[in-house]
């Protein structure tokens, strides 16, 4: 049997998904046995031009991590879609926007001005900003165009499978790779993750009826090691987040931040988290409710930490 041709690419991402690909440990040998990696900018010396020369559909599968936030990301998404039989949105950024997606609370101008002019450590009196093109003595130089709105891979091109996680856990990654290697693929559009409902179902902490009088940030209290974190007033996203990670964060005393995305059947993770958090407040008094809610300092950023570009309202409206 000829080896499977596999490509890996990173768009707007941190590089963690590349590490997660390697975290499958010695199974990487099985991957190397069955597959030939034809394009992987982070690890092997291949150029964009090499991909452009490939015939359409000549790559068997592409694991694409990272969100789409500039013209280079978009170009590579379209190119790899054309060249690949199977395109997999690998990791939270390409699946639902993730941390780069929080840029959708702002726009390109606000982000560039903040980064290049306003931060305390910046010394830029001429207000020099990156431009898409610049003329230098040697000729014209190009930079990718920086977009106002971060998009998911699926909002940019058709995607065959999604792998959740920031980054995907080893077992989740292997599920996807094993499906590719065996050819035993789930229906198109599937989110490939270990069968699970919510993170809560994998979390060993003891759960009672939740009624809380105050929300706390993680540094403000030392949580009880055995009781549900949400019950202790720590904003945990486990109730509205797909399981499959084994509840790693709650087991380590930190709340789930929601990186595996919405549970099966739910589209908008953030609104479900808001709903769950508000519902457990133990008060019927309007003023007390407001005071308790003041403990959630950044509701949109906490509930949509990984999924703003994929949400029903996928960006903040900016005043012109």
């Amino acid at each position: 049997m000829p080896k499977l041709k596999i490509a890996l690419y990173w768009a707007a991402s941190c590089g963690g998904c590349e590490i997660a690909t390697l975290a499958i440990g010695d199974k990487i040998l099985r991957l190397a046995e069955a597959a030939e990696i034809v394009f992987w900018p982070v690890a092997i010396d291949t150029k964009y031009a090499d991909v452009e020369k490939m015939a359409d559909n000549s790559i068997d599968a592409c694991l694409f991590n990272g969100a789409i936030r500039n013209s280079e990301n978009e170009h590579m998404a379209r190119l790899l879609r054309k060249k690949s039989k199977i395109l997999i949105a690998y990791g939270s950024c390409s699946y639902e926007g993730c941390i780069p997606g929080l840029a959708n609370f702002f726009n390109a101008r606000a982000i560039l001005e903040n980064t290049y002019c306003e931060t305390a450590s910046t010394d830029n009196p001429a207000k020099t900003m990156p431009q898409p093109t610049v003329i230098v003595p040697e000729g014209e130089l190009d930079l990718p165009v920086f977009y106002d709105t971060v998009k998911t891979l699926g909002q940019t091109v058709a995607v065959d499978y999604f792998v959740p996680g920031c980054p995907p856990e080893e077992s989740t990654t292997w599920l996807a790779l094993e499906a590719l290697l065996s050819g035993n693929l789930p229906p198109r559009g599937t989110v490939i993750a270990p069968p699970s409902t919510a993170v809560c179902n994998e979390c060993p902490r003891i759960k009672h009826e939740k009624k809380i009088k105050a929300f706390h940030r993680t540094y403000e209290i030392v949580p009880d090691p055995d009781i549900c974190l949400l019950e202790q007033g720590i904003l945990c996203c486990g109730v509205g987040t797909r399981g499959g990670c084994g509840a790693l964060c709650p087991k380590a005393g930190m709340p789930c931040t929601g990186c595996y995305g919405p549970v099966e059947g739910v589209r908008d993770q953030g609104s479900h988290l808001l709903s769950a958090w508000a519902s457990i407040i133990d008060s019927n008094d309007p003023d007390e409710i407001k005071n308790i809610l003041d403990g959630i300092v950044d509701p949109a950023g906490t509930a949509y930490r990984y999924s703003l570009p994929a949400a029903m309202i996928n960006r903040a409206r900016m005043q012109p």
Partner: protein
Amino acid sequence: MNDFEPKIVAFLCNWCSYRGADLAGTSRIKCAANVRAIRVMCSGRIEPAFILRAFELGADGVLVLGCHPGDCHYAEGNYKALRRMELLKRTLAQLGIEEDRFRLDWVSASEGDKFSRVVNEITEKVRQLGPYKPKEGNKVA
């Protein structure tokens, strides 16, 4: 913007507010025709996702009406609505959605006049704000 007619989605609880709306109708109280009513069994059934989905599908404003505090048919459903909608309001503000596009209020079965007043008020406020455009392209300012 003179010909702009706001689309307002109103979630009305079965036991109080929907009957209040009914009373406004049978009493022939005039009120703005901009509201699309959706009857739910209780305001406690309304999830933040419903409001976001209404905006996503083109609503210019969303109204949630339930029984007055203490009057809920299911004892405490409207308090649950109060908690959820208060948190949602803060989230909508972060998403740049004007405060006047969303309103939670209480209308009893006998308050046809209040129903009409609330509907007229939100319609006028949203009319002033103009249309809500949820999806804007990469070139949005």
